């Protein structure tokens, strides 16, 4: 009898379809000309082009990092399409009716149809469809209280002073190989600005979707919360099934001033490749938040279930006194997936606090690594960190690794790190089964219990989605 712990996932990727929309693409390849073309297409000001070119020239001097615990065929950067925009049937959409019906159907298949989203009270969605922002809902309502929520390209046109001030202030273009690449070729993304004293009345949300075959997607997200402002931002991702690996190198920058807070939640479910590791997304993302002001707070919550390779370290720079950084993560890998993910908490200011809760689940032939840095600088009087990194292994061919770096240069700091590794025990399963609960359900319950500390940080709809996603991903693999 094959015990439930032994049957392995054969779940087909549910969202694997290609929307047939004529797109306007640049030829593959990267050069200064490509960058000038992207910039010109988007009608960008001179300073932004200069920024891109500086980043590009710097990128040329850099080498791809190899320290992560992943192996993959390095992408050929000359084969990637750096710009692809859905061809507008009309210049601008005023309402949903004008949007390409093909596109709407795509979202419907994804389970996030526009209509439903409209009905989902309190969620405004900025849809990035292959690099260009198509439509933005609730914009006007938010605008009334001074919140800017739009695509980055629009922000460049409408609010250049804000973009100029904050773009690259948290992740400089020279930061790392993929951040430099992104700074050179980013096409679009979201821009959020919450003015002084405003609490955003609804969760802001973006669904990213990589659609055009061979188009790398290079989003750039910038969220700024001024003094006393607060916002919760959701990012959800699904992508259609392709055989060639696709590169995704996004940069997300968050800035909080005095007493401000940003909560950033992600559910990532991109195509992970098939059972033999063919295809799948390369997810090389730089996400970083700067707690610039006193008493400010940045919280990252992520549920990572997709992508062939994940290389992602949402981080917090705790500069302001009493500022708080949080990182809650569930990373699930199955089949041949490889994930090297974690966080960095850089304590610079006095009395800064950080919490790291990371849950890794590996199944199949996958490899799942937590890599984190907690750094307490000499002036970070009274800094406090607590980290907990738990791993669960399902099956005998997967691996779970923990690489925490702890650097403490202040004697009043208190830093604690704990990590454990465990499996779903036959005894636990037996207990459930003798109570009449089928093995599949039992596993789902055990996994959800294991991830509870993270799921409860997610906004309601996401928590439901994430729970479903985990069971879906592990279907048959456990048991």
């Amino acid at each position: 009898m094959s015990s439930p712990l032994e049957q392995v996932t054969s779940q087909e990727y549910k969202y694997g379809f290609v929307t047939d929309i004529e797109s306007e693409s640049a030829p593959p390849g990267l050069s200064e000309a490509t960058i000038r073309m992207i910039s010109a297409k988007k009608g960008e000001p001179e300073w932004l082009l200069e920024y891109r070119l500086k980043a590009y020239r710097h990128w040329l001097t850099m080498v791809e990092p190899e320290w992560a615990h992943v192996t993959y065929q390095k992408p050929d950067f000359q084969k990637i399409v750096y710009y692809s925009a859905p061809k507008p049937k009309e210049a601008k959409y005023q309402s949903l009716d004008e949007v390409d019906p093909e596109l709407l159907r795509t979202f419907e298949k994804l389970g996030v149809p526009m209509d439903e989203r409209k009905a989902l009270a309190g969620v405004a969605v900025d849809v990035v469809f292959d690099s260009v922002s198509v439509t933005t809902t609730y914009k006007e309502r938010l605008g009334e209280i001074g919140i800017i929520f739009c695509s980055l390209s629009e922000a460049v046109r409408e609010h250049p002073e804000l973009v100029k001030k904050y773009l690259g202030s948290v992740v400089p273009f020279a930061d790392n190989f993929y951040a430099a690449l992104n700074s050179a070729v980013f096409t679009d993304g979201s821009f959020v600005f919450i003015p002084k004293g405003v609490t955003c009345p609804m969760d802001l949300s973006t669904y990213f979707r990589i659609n055009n075959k061979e188009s790398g997607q290079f989003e750039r997200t910038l969220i700024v919360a001024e003094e006393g402002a607060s916002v919760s931002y959701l990012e959800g991702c699904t992508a259609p099934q392709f055989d060639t690996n696709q590169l995704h190198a996004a940069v997300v920058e968050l800035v909080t001033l005095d007493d401000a807070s940003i909560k950033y939640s992600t559910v990532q479910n991109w195509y992970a490749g098939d059972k033999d590791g063919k295809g799948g997304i390369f997810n090389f993302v730089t996400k970083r938040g700067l707690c610039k002001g006193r008493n400010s707070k940045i919280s990252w919550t992520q549920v990572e279930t997709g992508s062939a390779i994940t290389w992602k370290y949402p981080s917090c720079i705790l500069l302001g006194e009493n500022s708080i950084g949080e990182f809650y993560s569930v990373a699930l890998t199955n089949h041949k997936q490889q994930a090297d993910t974690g966080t960095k908490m850089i304590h610079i200011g006095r009395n800064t606090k950080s919490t790291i809760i990371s849950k890794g689940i590996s199944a199949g032939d996958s490899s799942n690594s937590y890599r984190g840095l907690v750094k307490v600088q000499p002036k970070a009087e009274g800094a406090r960190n607590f980290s907990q990194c738990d791993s669960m292994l399902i099956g005998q061919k997967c691996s779970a690794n923990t690489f925490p770096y702890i650097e403490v240069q202040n004697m009043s700091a208190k830093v604690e790190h704990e990590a454990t590794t465990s499996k779903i025990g036959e005894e636990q399963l037996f207990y459930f089964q003798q109570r009449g609960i089928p093995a599949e359900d039992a596993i789902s319950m055990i996994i959800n219990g294991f991830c509870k500390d993270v799921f409860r940080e997610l906004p309601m709809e996401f928590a439901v989605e994430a729970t479903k996603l985990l069971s879906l991903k592990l279907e048959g693999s456990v048991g």
Partner: protein
Amino acid sequence: MASLTETSLLSDLLAEPRPSTWATLRQAAETSLQAQAFPTSREEDWKYTDLKALRDTSFRPGKLEDANISEYILPEARGTRLVFVNGHFAPHLSNTSALAPGVRMLTLACASEAAAGLGSLARPETSDPFANLNHARFTDGAYLFVPKNVRVEAPLHVLFVSQQKGSDATYSLPRVHVVLERGAQAQLVEEYLGQGHYFTNAVVEVHLHEGATLSHERVQRESKEAFHITSLAARVDRNARYVCRTLSLGARLSRQTPKVRMAEEGAELELNGLALLDQDQVADTHSLIDHTVPHCSSRQLHKTIVDGQSRGIFNGKIFVHPGAQQTDAQQQARSLLLSESARVDAKPELEIFADDVKCAHGAAIGQLDPEELFYLQSRGLNLKTARNLLTYGFAAELLAAIPVPSLRRQLRRAVMARTNASDLEALA
């Protein structure tokens, strides 16, 4: 980047003629050395440890000299002691008159049977340049052998003394090779001390056969100007038990790289360490516990106390190979920061390729608990005494388990002196 052999340290060292014994080992090590660059902080393994001072010093080989070791003689090991001065065997200071029948404790140069085993655990093809340097140029060392089912009561004491003579810094390449046959039991004290400016670069190999038990105390109390690097490679066979404690008190820069292979089922390991640092000392521990087979258990506790501008580094990896089910591995790293400018870097790592295992690690870095200080003060101790007592207590946990009474007393006194807790001597 300068190649390893181009740096002054190594070019001087390698200019020495290569000893003719153990030629295969030396040849392999030299081949590895030629391909290696001098480690820099860009390499993950040396990220936190700056070797500039070592690289910029040139060393001359030390000569056999007389040394006063009376302070360090262990009464329990009066007739089971080997002493080396500046890397050379010192027969007049050694005494092996009390060895049990069949037990061998002698120099490598005299132990012809050791030839085959040398370098079999600490392999010359590894990426550790300092171990390779030792392989390539060592001249002598200690060989310890305990035959089947023999239990050695007296602790075996191996003492490496270094002395700088004149203005030139000296180096030595000590070597210890330990073999315990099936069911053998022993205690070993491996100790390093000295005066002045010098470099000790040792390789230690320990092989415990089925059911053997070794309790291994490793005491590093080199002079405060010394450099000390030791590579330890151990192999623990079926149902054997290895208890290893490393105490790092001396040296301006020290590095310990214990690598223990749990080679057969039922092997047990306890790998503990204490680094007590002040001024500008740097102590680095890079350990690897390698679980290659099922049903082994390992416990690791590493403690660091940093004062002054000192720096403690701990990088401990637990590796569980595919198929090594039922592994039970626990690792704890605790650090105590006593001064504003001291620094601790910790990196406990788990790499796990088997699903049915119990593995956990924890790392905690902090200062003395204000509540504990308050408690002691409420009992009438002044703040200074309370601090010293708690600091001593933090270290004492590891000293308490040392099985050789005279050594335990010696080290307690040394730790008390360092933690300014001498007025608490009555407690010892």
